[in-house]
């Protein structure tokens, strides 16, 4: 074997390895970042109205029937009056319905949708079986920490929750 053939073989091996790594990397990224992160969604009224009191809960965190019930009872919204004018209410309700868990092709969204039995209409994300299953190991005293302050404060541990990112690798639980 000449030196040049050996060099050529080594070069081919390296190329094959690099290609294999590239392809599996792409597959890995597709699985994790394409499907674990909820799809990017936006609506100016949703951002302004919902976001003035609480963080922006991604529409794919609840099924359509839940959003429908929430949006039809804004005068008594978790103990507070969050009444909107009819046009704004309608626009936000349609936005939430369009991107709801049971209308999304996203894997995580589908799991959330499947975790709520037909006929059940959870009004809180924390009531879905999916949420309960995923947070089973969190002790009560952790939820009570000052930097967390309860189950509604997703961004305390999931910094990019408002962008639909609940990737386990990005979780930081404050002390």
């Amino acid at each position, binding site marked *: 074997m000449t030196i040049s053939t050996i060099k050529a073989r080594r070069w081919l091996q390296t190329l094959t390895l690099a290609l294999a790594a590239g392809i599996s990397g792409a597959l890995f990224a597709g699985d994790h970042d394409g499907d674990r992160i909820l799809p990017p969604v936006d609506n100016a009224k949703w951002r302004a109205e919902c976001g003035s*009191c*609480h963080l922006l809960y991604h529409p794919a965190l609840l099924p359509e029937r839940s959003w429908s019930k929430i949006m039809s009872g804004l*005068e008594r919204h978790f103990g*507070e*009056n*969050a*009444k909107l*004018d009819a046009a704004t209410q309608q626009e936000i309700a349609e936005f939430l319905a369009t991107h709801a868990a049971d209308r999304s092709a996203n894997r995580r969204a589908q799991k959330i949708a499947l975790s709520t039995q037909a006929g059940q209409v959870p009004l809180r994300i924390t009531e879905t079986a999916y949420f309960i299953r995923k947070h089973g190991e969190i002790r009560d005293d952790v939820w009570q920490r000052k930097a967390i302050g309860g189950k*509604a*404060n997703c961004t305390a541990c999931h910094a990019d929750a408002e962008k639909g990112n609940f990737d386990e690798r990005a979780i930081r639980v404050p002390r």
Partner: protein
Amino acid sequence: MHKSMTALALAACLSQAAPAVAVPTQEILRGYESEARKESASFMPSVTRGESLFRTERSTARGDKLACATCHTNDPRQSGITRAHKTIEPLAPVANPLRFTDPAKVEKWFGRNCADVFTRSCTAAEKADLITWLLTIK
């Protein structure tokens, strides 16, 4: 040609989000004052009544006290915080010049918050009192 250009220019203007035109706070205040005078012709807004409304506490069914100050803090120059952890920009115009400059927003929040804190609507007189007090804060 000219017509279509005009149409294009018009379309471009309309497609841009119209910036909310700020209304001077004094104008919003005068609106509430004149509404209050329809009820009582001698109405004059009161700084004292305004502050007292802000600090009026109600006991809730859960057994805690609720007042405007619960979320807005005792000092309207400070930022407040909602029960759901969101920052509320200061109420006092001296600390937040955009406050009380959008009539629809003012009505929306009086509507919601009076219902929550006082379990009723606020009167035009009360709204005038509150804004008058907040404008005296330097």
